[in-house]
């Protein structure tokens, strides 16, 4: 019979004797792995559902609105382009919600063939007084199946809650900067009821699908949809045809009868949620791995300390014939087992509770159809295999370094390479301060580890604390630097009598620079003597926003390129000035230069600045309106949806700080237990010993926190700048002074907690410790 290694019995006992420490480490891992696994499982399952829904619910390849219904002949003509056209008409009605605010419902004609619905609760309407509404909109308005809604004086019963396969996000208009699922929702009644409703007004919306199946990519889709648009424009009988520029901006000539043309790839209501699902995976994984590395590092330090402590035992075992490998496996077992169990429980939690938490998070923002949980191999590898490997690697390297000594060196406790150093000469400080300095110098490796541990914990803490103030700051500067309180982008000409209104030309291009993703940059053509753009614009050359200058590292005199959004044409600009607008990517040109570049008339305009609301332009003619609410919407939305996460990160960091400082100072105290015992024998009181050892540690902690602030700021700046390079827009980096102060106070309080615990430990060191260990 093969005997099991009796050393294995120590693992469980070690776990029991240091239960607190391992429980915290274990909990950390379980929660992080669970959250990560839950996120990957939920988001990947939902992404799969999102992708499958195109087939499953027969989702359109695009849609367009006409001013009136198409004749059969026109439909036949379009369908010759190898597409199928489906009428998908709707009416819009408003009603007063429970929050007393006006709610807009877009009620579709009963859908049997195209853009089918996923029933989330209840059933489709059977009677004319029944209606189904979007689940997300219903949740936001506290409406449940069976509730009654009064629309235009008629009361409807909500027979069910649904997810529209073409509305995973409630974008009322495709050009809106942000969705609004509180005040806008989609609904569907019976065929008969729709007839009644449509008597008043009706939107002639037509959906299409390509008979050849879905296009291969966005470029092909763009080509197909552009070709189709020409046919639609022709068939609609009005002639004309939209210009390429118009199609790019979504601006269509009102006279040709089409007032909306949205191919699938450009449909925000359809794509926004899918794009967002799992988009934060990279940062979450980075967070998981940093945590595992820190925990592995703590394990490494603990193991290193244990090996030093058990040196003579190890020497005896090695002398008796235990191999390095056996001891390596023995000491490695604990961290790997803890990680393995944490990964297993974390994954179980991920597939059950956490998946639901994450799914609920997504369901609280998006109107997603029901999803089926899919086995996620990648999640398994990234949340189980990688953490175990990481733990194995970090602790394994420490172990290999520690176990390389010969049995004799272990028996003689001769585990350092360096020879005994001479005592460092210290200045004439007081005795206590010299003693403290000696403690630090004697335990320099332990204290250096502490500095590193604090650095990692402070990085996470500062990271968690800096964002809300940063977002507030971004909101403020975005508002402060708006050119005008209102900015209206028009679909075509539209005159106003508003005295504040000022015309300008605008065109959206893409940035085109090495090392950056392409992003939209608005090119403005500003008329002379503008009251809104006060910077003098040169005859030739461009004035760029400070956000653009900072992001792309452009300065006066530099040249840069912009690219047509859907073509390969490039335009070269030279920077002639920088306009203070830290959060936008924009290029300001004099109107005359704009005319030359884009070949437009000298009085061409397509937008207005205004400090007061323009009320005399029909909303049909306005492509989009930008107000202060719009420019701060992103930061506000981020604050709402991520505020909790930052608090979790902060809490996490504080616990981690306490854990790191506690474990590392514990090791330092244990190493010094003989000296502590000795000074006790000499007659020092616990308080005095505490002052010696804890004050020395306090110095190091405070120094480490302050040093970390400097290093972490630079580190976060680097990460942040690299991160923002891949995203649209710009957020100027900065950590508020208050954040540092709060962070410092938090770390000091955390340290005081640890110091109190360590004081108890000092009190417990017995006096015979010093006598017992003398050999």
């Amino acid at each position, binding site marked *: 019979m093969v*005997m*099991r*290694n*009796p*050393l294995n*019995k*120590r693992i469980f*006992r*070690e776990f029991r*004797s240091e239960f607190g420490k391992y429980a915290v480490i274990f909990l950390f891992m379980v929660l992080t792995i669970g959250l990560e696994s839950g996120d990957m499982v939920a988001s990947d399952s939902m992404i799969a559902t999102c992708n499958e829904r195109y087939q499953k619910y027969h989702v359109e390849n695009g849609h367009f609105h006409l001013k009136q219904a198409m004749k059969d002949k026109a439909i036949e003509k379009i369908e010759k382009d190898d597409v199928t056209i489906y009428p998908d008409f709707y009416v819009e009605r408003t009603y007063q919600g429970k929050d007393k605010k006006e709610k807009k419902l877009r009620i579709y004609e009963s859908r049997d063939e195209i853009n089918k619905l996923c029933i989330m609760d209840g059933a489709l309407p059977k009677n004319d007084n029944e209606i189904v509404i979007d689940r997300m909109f219903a949740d936001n308005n506290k409406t449940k199946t069976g509730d009654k809604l009064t629309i235009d004086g008629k009361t409807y019963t909500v027979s069910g809650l649904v997810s529209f396969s073409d509305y995973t996000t409630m974008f009322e208009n495709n050009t809106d900067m942000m969705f609004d699922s509180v005040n806008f929702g989609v609904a569907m009644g019976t065929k008969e009821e729709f007839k009644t409703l449509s008597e008043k007004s009706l939107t002639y919306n037509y959906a299409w699908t390509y008979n050849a199946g879905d296009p291969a990519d966005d470029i092909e889709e763009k080509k197909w949809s552009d070709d189709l648009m020409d046919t639609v424009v022709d068939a609609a009988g009005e002639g004309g045809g939209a210009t390429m520029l118009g199609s790019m901006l979504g601006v269509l000539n009102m006279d040709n009868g089409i007032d909306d043309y949205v191919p699938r790839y450009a449909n925000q209501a359809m794509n926004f949620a899918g794009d967002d699902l799992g988009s934060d995976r990279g940062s979450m994984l980075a967070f998981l791995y940093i945590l595992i590395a820190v925990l592995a590092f703590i394990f490494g330090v603990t193991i290193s300390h244990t090996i030093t402590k*058990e040196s*003579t*035992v190890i*020497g*005896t*075992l*090695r*002398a*008796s*014939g*235990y*191999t*390095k490998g056996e001891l390596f496996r023995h000491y490695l077992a604990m961290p790997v087992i803890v990680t393995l169990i944490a990964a297993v429980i974390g994954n179980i939690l991920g597939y059950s509770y956490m998946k639901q938490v994450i799914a609920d998070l997504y369901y609280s923002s998006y109107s997603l159809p029901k999803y089926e949980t899919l086995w996620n191999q990648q999640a398994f590898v990234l949340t189980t295999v990688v953490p175990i490997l990481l733990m194995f690697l970090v602790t394994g390297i420490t172990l290999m370094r520690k176990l390389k000594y*010969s*049995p*004799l060196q272990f*028996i003689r406790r001769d585990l350092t390479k360096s020879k005994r150093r001479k005592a460092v000469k210290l200045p004439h400080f007081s005795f206590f301060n010299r003693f403290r300095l000696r403690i630090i110098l004697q335990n320099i490796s332990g204290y250096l580890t502490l500095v590193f541990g604090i650095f990692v914990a402070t990085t996470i803490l500062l990271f968690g604390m800096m964002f809300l103030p940063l977002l507030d700051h971004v909101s403020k500067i975005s508002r402060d630097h708006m050119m005008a309180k209102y900015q209206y982008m028009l679909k075509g000409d539209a005159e106003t009598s508003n005295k504040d209104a000022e015309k300008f030309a605008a065109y959206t291009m893409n940035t085109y620079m090495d090392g950056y993703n392409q992003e939209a940059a608005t090119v403005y053509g500003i008329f002379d003597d503008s009251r809104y753009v006060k910077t003098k614009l040169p005859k030739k050359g461009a004035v760029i926003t400070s956000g653009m200058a900072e992001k792309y590292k452009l300065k006066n005199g530099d040249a840069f390129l912009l690219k047509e959004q859907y073509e390969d044409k490039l335009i070269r600009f030279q920077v002639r000035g920088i306009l203070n607008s830290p959060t936008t990517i924009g290029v300001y040109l004099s109107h005359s230069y704009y005319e030359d570049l884009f070949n437009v008339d000298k009085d061409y305009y397509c937008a207005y600045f205004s400090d007061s609301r323009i009320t005399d332009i029909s909303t049909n003619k306005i492509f989009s309106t930008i107000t202060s609410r719009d420019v701060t919407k992103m930061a506000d939305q981020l604050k709402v949806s991520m505020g909790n996460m930052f608090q979790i990160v902060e809490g996490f960091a504080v616990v981690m700080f306490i854990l790191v400082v506690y474990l590392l100072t514990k090791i330092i105290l244990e190493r010094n237990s003989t000296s502590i015992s000795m000074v006790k024998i000499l007659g020092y009181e616990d308080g005095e010993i505490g002052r010696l050892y804890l004050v020395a540690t306090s110095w190091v902690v405070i120094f480490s926190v302050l040093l970390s602030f400097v290093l972490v700021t630079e580190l976060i700046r680097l990460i942040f700048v690299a991160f923002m390079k891949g995203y649209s827009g710009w957020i100027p980096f900065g950590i508020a002074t208050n954040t540092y102060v709060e962070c410092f106070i938090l770390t000091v309080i955390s340290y005081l907690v640890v110091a109190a615990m360590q004081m108890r430990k000092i009190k417990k060191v017995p006096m015979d410790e010093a006598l017992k260990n003398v*050999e």
Partner: protein
Amino acid sequence: MFLEINDLKKSFGQGDSRVQVLRGIDLSVDKGEICVLLGPSGSGKSTLLNIIGGIDAPDSGYVSINGEKMVDMTEKRLTRYRREHLGYVFQMYNLIPNLNIKENIEVGAYLSDHPLDIDDLLHTLGLYEHRHKLPNQLSGGQQQRTSIGRALVKNPDILLCDEPTGALDYTTSKEILKLIGDVNSKYGNTVIMVTHNDAIKEMADTVVKLRDGRIRKAYRNENKISAEELEW
């Protein structure tokens, strides 16, 4: 001859501070006998024991056990050799604090394919009643018995004892020496024991006296007595 040592030399340090610890040792020990290495501090007896045990290497010369020279062995082979043939007892007991007495002995048993019966050994060691206790619940003598048990349980060919009574009082020392003598008769292991206690030589079959790295005197003890009769 079971154990042969041939012109063994060993020095520590470099340059001016170089100290020659062993200056050419020749020695042979028969299987199953007790060999006591005597000498004052710094005489080289522990270094000699460590080289015999394969945890230190000589500068020149060799140790051969059963005809196999240790200098020719790789580190891996040496570990295997120690595992299969040697048992070690040190002055400090070096027990594993969170394993009980029986488990500490199992740590040794694990290394052997044919270990002794642990309960039987516990009785021989007089530790059977204490087998579930942790080391810190036992006296120094009991802890040293445990460490002897740990070394013996794998039934090694050679039991190497480095000052096994160095940390013990008179009575306990005699108990431990009696135990070593008893197991030598019961299991027939060769015992090589390092000590600076001259009285212990009386229980040996072979006595080797070292000074300054040289053997001053080596002889067979024709009037071997039991450990109980030792006096100092």
